[in-house]
């Protein structure tokens, strides 16, 4: 027996918050609701951060980020979706600049980001449309964002062409004066606008092969510095200074090949370049397997990433320059990232009188290590169900 109408309304009201920027997955049956709860736990360690104020290089970070995703099919061709993210961030390399002055709100007790998102998706013949709006808020950064998608299929759905545009109206608060650091006060909110456009196409090649190609252009304008980023200029710490615009380009391709009904390979490649002088190549190969008549799903993957430094990056500066950064994320490095995912179908669950159909429990472990020393690991666990 399914959940009563009242129970469905209560669940939807309790959990309906924000949106997921999802690819165009298949529409569900009218009236169906899917809920997925996801817990992300991230831990990073590094002592090689040249941007850290006290010269310790400490980039240790721990993040606990629960998320919830909701999709509801209101008609046969229209779906509404929402997601909500709570990001609890204890970034030691971030608060070390503030030093408990109170400018960060809670000092070293921790910081939190909340990010709700809401969207709608509609399918009309061979065309699919979608739109999402979202906000994000933390003590030194806020965001209002909107995205729109359209996808058209051709040749009996063998070929699809998609377009996605995104706009972020963000603000960032920086420390204008860090002399001395313990007296540093965070400044007013400064604008940071990000525009992005992505065009992609997919093509079925054979019964067992499909490829996808996409191109992305993103333009960031405004204050692009990191709140806690500093540089060492003749043994004196100064705030980092970056250009007011960054033009970014990426080309990516993905090929999926099925060996048989239960095993497939997914290979992807991305080439990136921007007007700050950074170039990057990223390659990922994954093997996907379904077991027990598709009740279980396993993915084993390894990813390699290599990038050059941006033009303004140095470990230390002998004198002040127009643009300066020592942000380790903008340095030259290579990294390897193995990951494993396992999900299991739990069938129908019946907690407290609710009928939760097609429940699935998933777990993912990802590890990454750079040749510069920074490494991180994160664990993701999820529970999804329909009603």
């Amino acid at each position, binding site marked *: 027996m399914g959940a009563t109408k009242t129970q469905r309304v209560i669940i939807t009201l309790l959990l309906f918050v924000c949106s997921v920027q999802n690819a165009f997955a298949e529409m569900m049956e009218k009236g169906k609701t899917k809920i997925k709860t996801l817990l992300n736990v991230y831990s990073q360690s590094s002592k090689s951060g040249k941007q850290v104020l006290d010269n310790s290089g400490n980039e240790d970070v721990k993040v606990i980020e629960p*998320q919830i995703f909701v999709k509801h099919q209101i008609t046969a061709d229209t779906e509404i979706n929402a997601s909500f993210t709570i990001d609890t961030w204890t970034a030691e390399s971030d608060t070390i600049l503030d030093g408990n002055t109170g400018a960060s709100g809670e000092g070293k007790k921790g910081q939190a980001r909340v990010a709700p998102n809401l969207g709608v998706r509609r399918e009309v013949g061979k065309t699919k449309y979608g739109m999402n709006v979202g906000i994000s808020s933390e003590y030194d950064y806020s965001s209002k964002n909107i995205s729109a998608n359209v996808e058209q299929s051709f040749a009996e759905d063998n070929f699809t062409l998609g377009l996605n545009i995104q706009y972020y109206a*963000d603000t960032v608060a920086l420390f204008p004066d860090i002399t001395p650091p313990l007296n540093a006060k965070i400044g007013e909110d400064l604008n940071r606008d*990000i525009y992005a456009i992505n*065009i992609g196409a997919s093509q079925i090649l054979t019964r067992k092969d499909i490829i996808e*190609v996409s191109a992305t*252009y993103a333009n960031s304008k405004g204050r692009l510095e*990191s709140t806690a980023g500093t540089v060492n200029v003749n043994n004196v710490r100064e705030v980092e200074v970056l250009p007011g615009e960054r033009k970014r380009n990426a080309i990516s391709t993905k090929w999926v090949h099925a060996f048989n009904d239960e095993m497939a390979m997914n290979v992807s490649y991305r080439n990136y370049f921007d007007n700050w002088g*950074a170039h990057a190549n990223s390659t990922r190969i994954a093997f*996907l397997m379904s077991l027990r008549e598709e009740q279980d799903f396993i993915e084993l993957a390894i990813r390699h990433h290599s*990038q050059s430094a941006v033009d303004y990056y140095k470990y230390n500066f002998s004198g002040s320059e127009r643009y300066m950064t020592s942000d380790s994320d903008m340095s030259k490095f290579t990294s390897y990232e193995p990951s494993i995912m396992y999900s299991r179908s739990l069938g129908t669950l019946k907690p407290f009188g609710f009928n939760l159909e097609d429940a699935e429990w998933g777990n993912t472990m990802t590890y990454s290590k750079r040749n510069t020393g920074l490494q991180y690991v994160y664990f993701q666990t999820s529970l999804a169900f329909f009603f």
Partner: protein
Amino acid sequence: MKLFLYYGACIILLTSCANVPQIDRGILAKRIMQFDPHPEETVFQDEVRAFREGAIGGGKAVGGGCGCN
């Protein structure tokens, strides 16, 4: 921008020359054949990569939305 227009034109030229009929797409509909078989997990994964690597593209994150550092 010129490069973007160039690559965009290349993508548009990828028109289908060989059709696989609906009846033969059984394997293509399976989860193992999806470009992204776990889209919700990918949201966080894309965020981590966008802020830890400085490169964007190939996913949803484009470097906005949070001051993650």
